């Protein structure tokens, strides 16, 4: 019971790290990037490659995945994405689905369609007793890393100048521009960091979720659920939503495998209809 809860929390935290970039960019530019999962996939496959081909230690792969995905994000943002901010949501969706298809095809071509598995380092495998429940060391590791990241993010958002500018821009881009905040630059940075976090999440995810070329499509749904339930005005909203989703998903697959997905999707649709600004968002819908 507690094991499932902890597994769910680990999974949820991972989902949050994967999705948080998307939430912020959506809130910031009202831009829907369905290809967000491709950056996570990039991080995941980089880790797999580095570990399997070059024998790079896992702990080195994590920052490498972050940097790789962040640079990739920055490049794409500067060259392609920025042309889409003033286009319709439909265009943005088509464009990002196009990117997803391309990413999937490339990964499929290079690695094949099979699921990739990494061999985690010795010290991260096995199970330990924690508060009377047995939990995988790796799950605990994920929880710790993600908690640190969440705290770090929260600190950056609330304590730094960049954070306050970012929050101002999310609240009202026009006003922020009026106050002389360079929203375009903030967006580029946020996009890069968000992609980087997705890449890091992908790297971390290699130990929990299996990677195959359909990853971006499969996880797109999860990201959308996190966004729709959590809203895009805060990061606590998506965080709670991600934890909830993680626990619900793990518990659902364990207890009621037949209807688990069904319930999650139904909740997503209901939240979208009844509280379009998100379950945990403050203030009225925009």
């Amino acid at each position, binding site marked *: 019971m507690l094991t499932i809860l902890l597994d769910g929390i680990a999974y949820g935290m991972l989902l949050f790290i994967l999705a948080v970039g998307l939430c912020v960019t959506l809130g910031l530019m009202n831009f829907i990037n369905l290809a967000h999962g491709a950056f996570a996939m990039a991080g995941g496959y980089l880790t797999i490659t580095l570990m399997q081909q070059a024998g790079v230690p896992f702990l080195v792969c994590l920052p490498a995945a972050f940097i790789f995905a962040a640079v990739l994000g920055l490049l794409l943002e500067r060259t392609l994405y920025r042309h889409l901010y003033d286009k319709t949501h439909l*265009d943005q*969706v088509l*464009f990002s689905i*196009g990117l997803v298809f391309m990413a999937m*095809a490339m990964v499929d*071509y290079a690695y094949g369609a099979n699921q990739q598995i990494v061999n985690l380092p010795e010290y991260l495998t096995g199970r330990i007793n924690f508060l009377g429940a047995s939990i995988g060391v790796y799950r605990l590791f994920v929880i710790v890393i993600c908690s640190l990241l969440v705290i770090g993010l929260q600190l950056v958002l609330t304590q730094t100048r960049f954070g306050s500018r970012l929050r101002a821009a999310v609240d009202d881009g026009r006003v922020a521009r009026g106050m002389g905040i360079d929203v375009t630059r903030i967006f580029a940075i946020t996009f890069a960091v968000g992609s980087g976090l997705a890449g890091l999440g992908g790297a971390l995810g290699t130990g929990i979720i299996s990677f195959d070329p359909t990853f971006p499509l499969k996880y797109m*749904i999860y990201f959308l659920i996190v966004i729709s339930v959590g809203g895009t005005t805060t990061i606590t909203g998506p965080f709670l939503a991600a934890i909830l989703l993680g626990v619900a998903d793990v518990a659902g697959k364990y207890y009621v495998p037949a209807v688990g997905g*069904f319930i999650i999707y139904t909740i997503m*649709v209901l939240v979208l*209809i009844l509280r379009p600004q998100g379950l945990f968002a403050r203030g009225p819908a925009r």
Partner: protein
Amino acid sequence: MTDMTLSHQPSPEAVKARAVLLGRSRWGIAEIAFWVIAAACYFLLPTKLSLLSEIAILGLLALSIDLVLGYAGIVTLGQGAFFGIGAYAAGLAAKHGAGAGPWSDPLIGLFIGGGFAALIGFLTSFLVLRGSDLTRLMVTLGVALIVDEIVNQAKWLTGGSDGLQGVLPSPVLGIWDFDLFGRTAFIYSMSVLFVLFVIARAIVKSPFGLSLQAIKGNPLRTRAIGMPVNGRLVAIYTIGSFYAGVAGALAAQTTQFASPDYVAFHRSADALLMLVFGGAGHLYGGLLGSIIFRTMQDVLGNITPQYWQFWLGATLVGLVLFVRGGILGLLAGLRDRATRNGGAK
């Protein structure tokens, strides 16, 4: 109303204006040629009839999205759900009604498939009335995922991930049996596509169809002039679901099979791509798109499947960045420029 517009003679300008309006709904040469060629394919490409039926079915699905998105502006990522519902409903009707009299007739199956999809479409249409494009997108996607889950989990009914086996439709109208070469399938799918196309054509050129375009353009003003916006959207979403359901029913009948693949996300995405590629809001966009899509898939997919998927994605990206409006949008733009230059001299 009090004034007697009926009794007085319309002005010459009004007569002319009316001729212009009515001229828009007249069949053009290019249109007639399109359908003649489509029919002639029966003789021109006798070895490709199965592929051609498949194109007709995909075209019908894309047409259904055109009605909903291209005309009424409802962004949807879940049209595949109705395709799947239609396929399973018609498939089950054919499977369990086989030999049981008129119920197994494919035409009845079409109505069962389309009707069932329309019912679900009607019920879920209320979910897409409000909200931004983004909400609509996620809601339609969510509904499609729910349907996908049901199809995968309700093994007793749908056969789960193995698909629905043993779909054996009776001869069409009790006369034409589905043959191995796909002759019946071709004529049958093509006829259904044509009939539904003619109806869709009438709809979009009617006052109802015009009101949909107005809603897409400016919902605020349509309400201010007294238009029942929600009613119109429910109506077109239901009609669109019916069309998608019929397309699914056709697919199940002509391939004698239905699988969860029919409701999968990529089905909706592919159909959307076909429409956007051909050009939304022109009726023919989806048909043109499905022809190009399926042909490309055949050619590129034969090299490697990854190759196909890559170019599919690249096409989408390119379309959005460079060719807004698809092929037909491009053509319409050129024609506009030509007439303006012609009128300017």
